[in-house]
Structures are given as structure tokens and as C-alpha cells.
């Protein structure tokens, strides 16, 4: 019988229940429970054909990445007709198949493709596409296009169902803002840009004494108000997460992983690699690259963004390989939407719909998944999606993370076999 209040209980049951058992030594209980944490790395059991500790790195391309200029359907004349100025000439493309070529800024991804570790899912979207950045991003984060469910993220619900009592951050986002995708009822994800800055900082002149005092100040006290008690719990959890992160960051090698671009995106990926290598039991990392809203003068800007993306991912994959971690990590990219097929009058493209998702890792079934959306049968000038993004999420959850997805995604979707079949194992652990 648990005598403390988890965040989820608090949010769903409200204040009344806290009053009953709020003064119990909740932090001791929590620590004890963490020993039974199913996501405790030391207890993790190997699933045949999959790593013992599958880790997901989600890469968000914010602003609406132009999918058509990322993976270019160069045999479709309509592409060049719709984009007399922005169309990437066939001769410059990094050829993937007889139909498709990568943008020339993505040389690193071409290398990964040639190594058989890049899967491209074409024409990913959802019904009744929304062309608002905000709303469409929210749809990708919640995996709830109708907006009927609770406003929580699909990864947050993953943490809620699989790891409600994890102590350490089950998810880490490398930004100050917690993406909606990672938000759930149990608050098991943490957000920071710099692990050294994530934590309680004493005022200048004060020292570790103040940090220790803060920890002692958050101990439960009798007969306090439920909300105060809840906040003491939340603040103490934050301190515990910070201590864990600092413990891991303290084990970082002196010399940082080499070969990463100096830009923020590359540096965030370097940090992810270090956290994984240092043994963090985090299961999901979230890294964003923004600026893809190229309504005007797209040509140079989009190339630079793709250069950042490709060079960062290239360095990350190499680094993981050198550390022997390549089999433990799956990378998945997405953007809230692609862009209009036809370029606009300002040398840019407007908000569109379906676009490709990239999946990288040694478990990925390499190559092209699904057919390219038609460039003539359009919906208000936009591509019609072929594959629901929730199909990709479902495959990632079930085939990679090894968890049932139906409750997390609130339904079942046609499977996309983006991962190689597991060796020597027939049945999925999923329900």
C-alpha cells in the first residue's frame, strides 16, 4: 500500500485524497519503490533480437520541413514544374533509388543509407491535415488528431504506462521547454539545455550549505496544506533527478566526442551520446532543430538547415559506433508538416501536409517505405498522406521499445515494418 501521492494520482484524484496520507515519509517509500522499477537498467531483461536497453532519440524539425526538397522525387516532372526556382536539379541529388534522391546537403545521411541503416517512410501525415504550426505540432505530440483525449504526449503516456515510479528521468529533452510529447501524468521527463545548469543553484556567495539546506527544507512536515505538500514532493523529485543527472554528467569523459558540428543541434546530440555512454537509464531523448518555416527565400536557408541536420546526425551515428552503442539507439525524425508542392512568389513554400520521416539505426529495415504521394492528385495544393504517423509510432513502441501501444495511441493502426524482423523470436511481447 503506497502512502504517498504520485503526480498522476494528484492530477486525477485531486486534493481530497492527499489530505489522508500526505504526511507519510513519501520520499523513502518512493526510493524503495524505485527498486522495483521495471525500467531499472540493472533489472532489464534482454528481448531476443533486440538490445537490452533500447533507446529512442526523437529529432523534431520545427517549422515544417520541406519534405519534397529533402527526399526529392526527381522522376516526377510535376516536381520541377511546380518548383521552377526551388527544384533541386537531378544532377546534384544524392541518388537513393531510380525515383528518389537526397538533397545534396545530406551527404552524411547518404553514407548512412549506403551502410543500410537509414529507413525513409514516405508521405507520412494524418487525416484532415491542419496547417497551423501549433495545432499540427500538437497533433504529432499528442498523437490525437481529433483532440478528444487528455492533453498529454504520446511519450508521456509511454512513461505513465511503463514507468510510473521511475525515479530517474525516463525522458530527457535537451531544451528548457518540455515538449508536449513528453508530458504525461507522472512527470517522468526532465528538460534542460545544460546538465550542469539543471539543478538548484545557491545564490552567489552561498555554497553547498545552502544546497543541503534546500534539501532539508523540502522534507515533509506534518499538518501542512495538501498543495504545499504536493509541491514539496515535486521539488524533491526535481532535486533527485538533478542529482542523478549530475552523477551521470560527472562521469563524462574529459574530451568531448569529436566530429560534431559546433552548432547547437550538433552539441545537443553530443550530449545525448555522452548521457547514453555514461549509463543513464533514460529511454527517450528529445532534440529539436528549428527554423524550417521557409515561406520566403528558402533556397540557401533550407540547405543550411539540412546541412546542420545531416552533419549532426552523421557525427552522432559515428560517435555511437565508436562507443559500441549503435545497436542500442533508434533515431526518428519528424516535422509538424511538409510544405506546399508549388513554390510561392517569395522564393519559398507555404505550409503543407505529408512529408517523409527518417529512421536511423542498425535495427532499421533500410530503404524506402511506402510509395511517394501523388504530385498531381493534391488536396488544396498539398500532398495526400499515405501513412498515418501513428503507424510509425506504433511500430517504434512495439517493435523497438517492446511495449503495447494500443492504450498509448488510443487505437491500432496499419503496421509499417520499419524495423528488421527480430531474429529467433516470433511473438511480440505486446498484447
Amino acid at each position, binding site marked *: 500500500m503506497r502512502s504517498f501521492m504520485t503526480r498522476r494520482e494528484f492530477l486525477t484524484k485531486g486534493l481530497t485524497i492527499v489530505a489522508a496520507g500526505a504526511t507519510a515519509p513519501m520520499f523513502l517509500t518512493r526510493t524503495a519503490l524505485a527498486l522495483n522499477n521495471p525500467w531499472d537498467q540493472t533489472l532489464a531483461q534482454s528481448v531476443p533480437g533486440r538490445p537490452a536497453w533500447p533507446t529512442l532519440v526523437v529529432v523534431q524539425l520545427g517549422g515544417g520541413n520541406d519534405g519534397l526538397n529533402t527526399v526529392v522525387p526527381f522522376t516526377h516532372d510535376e516536381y520541377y514544374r511546380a518548383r521552377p526556382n526551388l527544384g533541386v536539379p537531378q544532377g546534384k541529388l544524392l541518388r537513393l533509388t531510380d525515383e528518389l534522391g537526397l538533397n545534396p546537403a545530406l551527404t552524411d545521411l547518404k553514407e548512412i543509407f549506403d551502410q543500410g541503416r537509414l529507413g525513409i517512410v514516405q508521405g507520412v501525415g494524418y487525416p484532415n491535415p491542419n496547417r497551423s504550426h501549433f495545432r499540427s505540432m500538437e497533433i504529432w505530440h499528442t498523437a490525437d488528431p481529433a483532440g478528444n483525449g487528455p492533453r498529454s504526449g504520446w511519450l508521456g503516456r509511454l512513461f505513465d504506462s511503463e514507468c510510473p515510479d521511475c525515479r530517474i*528521468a525516463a525522458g530527457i529533452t535537451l531544451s528548457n521547454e518540455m515538449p508536449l510529447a513528453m508530458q504525461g501524468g507522472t512527470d517522468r521527463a526532465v528538460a534542460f539545455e545544460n546538465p550542469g545548469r539543471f539543478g538548484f543553484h*545557491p*545564490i552567489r556567495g552561498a555554497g553547498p550549505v*545552502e544546497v543541503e539546506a534546500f534539501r532539508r527544507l523540502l522534507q515533509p512536515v506534518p499538518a501542512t496544506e495538501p498543495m504545499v505538500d504536493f509541491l514539496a514532493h515535486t521539488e524533491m523529485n526535481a532535486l533527485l533527478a538533478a542529482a542523478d543527472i549530475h552523477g551521470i554528467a560527472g562521469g563524462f569523459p574529459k574530451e568531448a566526442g569529436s566530429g560534431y558540428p559546433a552548432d547547437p543541434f550538433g552539441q545537443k546530440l553530443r550530449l545525448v551520446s555522452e548521457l547514453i555512454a555514461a549509463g543513464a537509464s533514460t529511454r527517450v531523448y528529445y532534440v529539436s532543430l528549428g527554423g524550417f518555416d521557409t515561406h520566403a527565400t528558402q533556397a540557401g536557408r533550407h540547405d543550411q538547415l539540412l546541412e546542420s541536420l545531416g552533419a549532426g546526425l552523421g557525427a552522432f551515428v559515428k560517435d555511437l559506433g565508436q562507443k559500441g552503442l549503435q545497436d542500442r539507439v533508434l533515431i526518428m525524425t519528424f516535422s509538424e508538416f511538409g510544405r506546399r508542392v508549388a513554390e510561392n512568389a517569395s522564393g519559398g513554400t507555404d505550409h503543407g501536409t505529408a512529408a517523409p520521416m527518417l529512421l536511423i539505426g542498425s535495427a532499421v529495415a533500410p530503404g524506402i517505405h511506402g510509395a511517394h504521394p501523388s504530385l498531381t492528385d493534391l488536396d488544396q495544393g498539398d500532398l495526400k498522406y499515405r501513412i498515418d504517423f501513428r503507424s510509425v509510432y506504433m511500430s517504434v513502441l512495439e517493435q523497438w521499445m517492446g511495449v503495447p501501444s494500443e492504450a498509448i495511441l488510443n487505437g491500432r493502426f496499419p503496421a509499417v515494418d520499419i524495423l528488421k524482423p527480430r531474429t529467433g523470436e516470433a511473438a511480440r511481447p505486446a498484447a
Partner: protein
Amino acid sequence: MPTVLEPFAPSPGDPWDAVKAAHLLRRAGFGPLPQEVADAVSAGPDGAVTALFAFPPVPDPPPVFGEVRAAEDQADALRRSLPRTLLRKNPELQALYREAQRQHGRSMVDLTAWWLDRMARTPAPLQEKLTLFWHGHFTSSFGDVHDAIAMYNQNQLFRRHAAGNFARLLDGVARDPAMLRYLNNDQNRRGHPNENWARELMELFAMGIGHYTETDVKESARAWTGWTLRDYRSYVDRRTFAFKPLLHDAGTKTFLGHTGAWDGADIMQVILAHPATPQWIAGKLARFFVSPQPDPDLVDAMARQLLATGYEIGPVLRVLFRSRAFYRPDVMYAQVKSPTQFVVGAVRHLGIADPAWPRLAQAMADMGQRLFFPPTVAGWHGDAAWMNAGTVFVRTDVAAGLVGGALGSPDLSPFVSLGAVTRHLLGRPLPLAREAVLGGLATDGVTPGMIHLTLSLPEYQVA
């Protein structure tokens, strides 16, 4: 008077004291100072509540739009001089539009600083607290509106009607250019209805889901056609409401059982006459001013009060603030301070002379509340949702920055003893265990670290 709203009657065993006065001022404002609490105690509950409603006149616009208007004028002038067919391809015009857009974005920083400074300095904090309430209720985001002056005008609309009449405020919002753009009613035309505003009006602004059908959404969207902006060819016209009969669908609609050739004004009348509406508004007010899960009887009583006064906001709040229910033990300290209240309150408590508002506003965004950019049309979720492992440390870092002088110059002279610290910042003593920890940090006097720790305590995060 419904019994649940009967007035609090002070008695020797349950006096009108500093704890109750501080509760009132925290809920009706941002962060009361000891002198303000003392004044409210001596004014008595009637006097203290009455004083809250002494609103100053709505202020002049902040002096932050000069460059925006200059950039707009340049773009408008060039546009007028160009033949219509050349408009889209003219690179100079596109550059001027981009510059105007850049100025709008830049002035949002100044506008946000202006509002925060006003919250901290106003003699009538309730006016700004209600403006914030309406901003979170009738949401519009600069991220979609892209016009700083329209956002300011909407902010002033909320301030003008802050404790006024909900029906009149609603009418103003229905004609508000920022809202027309945010929820796309400016694109709602006969034959091409856009349901965004029609739907959110019922779902979030007035009634709550479950009191209408999809047909009601479609029919009312038709009624709202033609409620749009005057013209898109100049910035000023894009900030001006117009009803355009040519774009309006004058046909017959059936809305919530009423059939007629309705337009938007008729729809509002039907909504205001619907029993769900006073309940919805009362519930929103109770969650904002009373507690995350208010007593349903209290909400009912407030709804009846709203209906009885024809949707006057001021009177129902006066009755609420005066009521016994407002001072119940389970209501006090039941809210989590919003990032706005945390930052503005701390600036007030620390007597910060020159707050670094743009950096504080950024920190507020990191805490989950970016003013003028509500995260969704449903506004901010508030209370428990404000606090997570990431936002906790943004708060403690901001507290360190304010106490340490990195975010403005504090006046720490009132903090002469630990007792003064807790009285000043919390309005009540700390639990003994916590006080012992703080007291153990210094043999005599108060260190900045003790003030920082107090601002970091769970007790300081509640209102």
C-alpha cells in the same frame, strides 16, 4: 443571498486578521506587501474588498509602437503606389513587409515588459489580475495574430471590461481584430464557412462542451459570416472590425433550437440566455480566484448571482471575496502561483527598482507562461501543471537572480530577521522544522541565501 456565499463574519475566535487579508490580496493581486496587508486589516473586510475595485482609468498606450507604425506606413505607402499586378513580386515591398513584421515581433518584448511593470506598480492589482484572467480565457496568441498593436488593443479591451459586464466584453471580443484573426473568423464567408470561432466560442469561451451539437456549430458559423476586418491592404484597416453584408449568409439558421435569419449578435443572445453559460463563467472565475477544484455549490451560487445581475463581473467577485467560503481553510494556499504571479510578486516583495523585464519574461516562458502567447486556445492549465522538474529550477534560479541583483536591484532592508523574512514573503510563519533549517544558516541576522531559500520553498509557490 445563497447561504454558500454568505458573508464572513469576524468573531473573537475567527477574526479578520493579517492571514485572511493577505489571502485576499494574493488572490486579487500578485504579491501584497506587509503595509498593504496591514491597511487591509484595519479597513475591515468590507473596506478591504471595496478598495480592490477602485480601478484607475485605462492607461495610455505604451510608447513602444513608434517604429512599428513607421515601418507599416512605409510598406503601406509603397503598396499604394504600385500597380496591383506587381504587388506580389515586388522585392522592395516584400522587404518592407518583413521589416514591419520584425518590428511587430520586437515590440512584443516591450509590450510584455510594459504589462508586467504595470502589474507590479498599479495601485489596483485586481484590474491587472482580471486582465490576465480574460487573456487566459478569451485567448489569442501573437504567434498567430502577428500584430503587436492588435494584441495591445485586445489587452486594453480586457482591462476596460475587467470587472465589467461579461455580455459587453463578449461583444467586444467578437469584434476584436486579434480574435478575428486568431480564430479565423476574418475568413468566414458566405458559402465558405470557417467554424473555428463559432466552435471555440461555445466550447471554451461561453458554454463548455456537451451543451450543443455539431449542427449548432455549423449553423452558428454561418451566422458569424461577414464579421471580419475592414481591408487587408493596409495595416490600420487590418486592425479594424467591419461587418460585410456581402460576405454574410443571410439565410435561415437553427441554433440551439431557435430558428431565424440569425447573425452573430443573435447567436450571442442565445448563448447568454443558455443556462450553461453562467455556470461556465462562474466555474472559470472560481478556478482562477478560489481553488483548482471549487465547491460545486459555490459555483452554482456564483452562476445565479451572475444571472441575477445580467452578467456583471464586479458584483459577483465582491460577494465572493466577502464570503465565508472564500476564507475556508481548504481554499487558502490551495493554488499554485502562476509564473506571472511568482515573478511579479517576487519583484514587489524584493522592492526591485529596475526589473530586467525582458529576461524575466523569458524566464516566465521557461516556467510555462509566455504572456501574449497562450499555448492553446484553451489557455494555460495552471495550478499543479505549472510545476515540474524543469520549471522548479527556473523559479529557484529567478529567485537567486532577483535576490542577488542579476535581474534588478533589490531592496533587502526590510529583511532584518528571519521573522521579518517569512512575514514579508509568506504572510505567515513557517512550519517549525523549516524555520529551524533556515535559522541554522546564520547565527544572527539574515543572509541573502535565506531570502533565496524562502522564495524557493513550496510555501512561497502557493497562493
